[in-house]
């Protein structure tokens, strides 16, 4: 169980869902989200592949962040790229990641996405998966749950968040051009975020 492996599992999960994410983006965007993310993680996995197995998680996250920024493009590239770069902060010099560190990483990632994209919860973006995930994570910590338990409820909250995106109008990203017509469709970015969290959970589990 290494950071390198975790990235591989997460990346492969995204690549596997390439066409699904693209289909979602065709409905309310420009039909490239899966293509973008798959291209990004294919490039990232090539970069992490060659890292030593014992590379620390913070360094790996930096590689992932830089890699996504320079290969994804579109809206999701800078957003996810910044998210991974920022997530590298709280785990710097840590060899083992506890629930609190994980929560801090998730929040740093969210903060990074918001710094770049200026979006709030409820705007039908990836944040509608990630912010509820962070909130659920926080409750888990309050209830003294384990990292895995916290992650499990975070995944559940992210999935609920994806469902929630079906019910709201997009006000950020391309789907915002559709106004009411975006209702009924789930957000591609919220979906890809949930795919990543889910893969991570399955890997750690």
């Amino acid at each position: 169980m290494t950071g390198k492996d975790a990235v591989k599992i997460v990346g492969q999960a995204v690549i596997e869902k390439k066409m699904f994410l693209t289909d979602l983006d065709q409905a309310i965007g420009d039909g490239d989200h899966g293509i973008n993310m798959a291209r990004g993680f294919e490039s990232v996995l090539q970069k992490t592949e060659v890292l030593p197995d014992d590379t620390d998680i913070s360094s790996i996250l930096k590689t992932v962040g830089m890699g996504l920024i320079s290969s994804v493009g579109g809206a999701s590239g800078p957003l996810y790229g910044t998210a991974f770069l920022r997530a590298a902060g709280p785990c710097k010099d840590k060899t083992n990641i506890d629930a609190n560190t994980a929560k801090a990483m998730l929040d740093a990632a969210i903060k990074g996405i918001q710094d770049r994209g200026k979006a709030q919860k409820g705007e039908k973006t990836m944040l509608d998966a990630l912010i509820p995930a962070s909130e659920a994570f926080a409750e888990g910590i309050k209830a003294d749950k384990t990292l895995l338990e916290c992650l499990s409820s975070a995944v559940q909250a992210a999935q609920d968040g994806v469902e929630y995106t079906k019910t709201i109008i997009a006000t950020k990203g391309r789907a915002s051009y559709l106004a009411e017509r975006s209702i009924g469709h789930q957000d591609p970015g919220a979906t890809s975020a949930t795919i990543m969290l889910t893969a991570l959970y399955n890997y750690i589990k």
Partner: protein
Amino acid sequence: MKKIINNPDNVVEEMLNGMTASHPQYLTRLEGFDSVIRTNKKADKVALVSGGGSGHEPSHGGYVGRGMLDAAVAGPVFTSPTPDQVYEAIKAVDAGKGVLLVIKNYSGDVMNFEMAAEMAAADGIDVEKVITNDDVAVENSTWTIGRRGIAGTILVHKIAGAKAESGAVLADVKRIAEKVIANERSMGMALSPCTVPAAGKPSFTLAENEIEIGMGIHGEPGTHREAIRTADEITQQLVDKILAEKIYNSGDEVAVLINGLGATPLMELYVVSNKVQAVLQEKGLHMVKTYVGNYMTSLEMAGYSVTLLKLDDELKELLLAPADTPAFVQY
């Protein structure tokens, strides 16, 4: 999907090589990057850099040349290029007088170009940006990311490019670009969808009698669908939406751009232009210059947009100034 391509993954690469091989007098590939830069760049001028996702050809590589752009950065089809790509283009064309980025208003484009600008600024390069947002199909309310940038972007390339070519300083080139943006509006429609090569299937489907109004340039759905009507009726509707912006007044001089989205016969664009001219004339506007053709496309989408730019003496002179690029030549 029926396309004249080799492999969806190589289409941008081969296109860029095809462009530079076809027009070496104008275009040079930025070695190792997805950009084309001006072959004989005038030293000592503000450099203009634009770009965005591919699939809008001749935008933007076709506008690299004298009096327009110095570099065009090409992302994957309909996907903004990454910051490092834009950053390298900025470095390649900066001649010490600074660089103006012309960005179409999409979250992805804005974020990637801004990151590139930050990187270049960190190198001490003077970088400014303008964001085009001519598409009136999309409301410019505070709770959205604002109007999209579509075909009107070409007029920014043209006019700011002429200003830069004249030797103006960066602040002045930026001012002119912003003046164009403030004075232009566009509105489009589509008859048929397009297929992103890597996606392999159309971005949406329309019934035989349906058209999409308020269409953008990425196969993203428009504002609404309706039954097809005559060219005159559709055109009237688009122009009315533009005129409702109330920035064009009787007696004004304007430039008109009738832009085909890729698969629209020029014959139809001229039928549209015929109506546009009549409507504008009736409103008391004076058409100084009309462009009709495929300037900002959306792969093989059928449809068109109308762009109206209000001119003052300064804009008019720059609009009519010479330009020499693969896709835009003007004496």
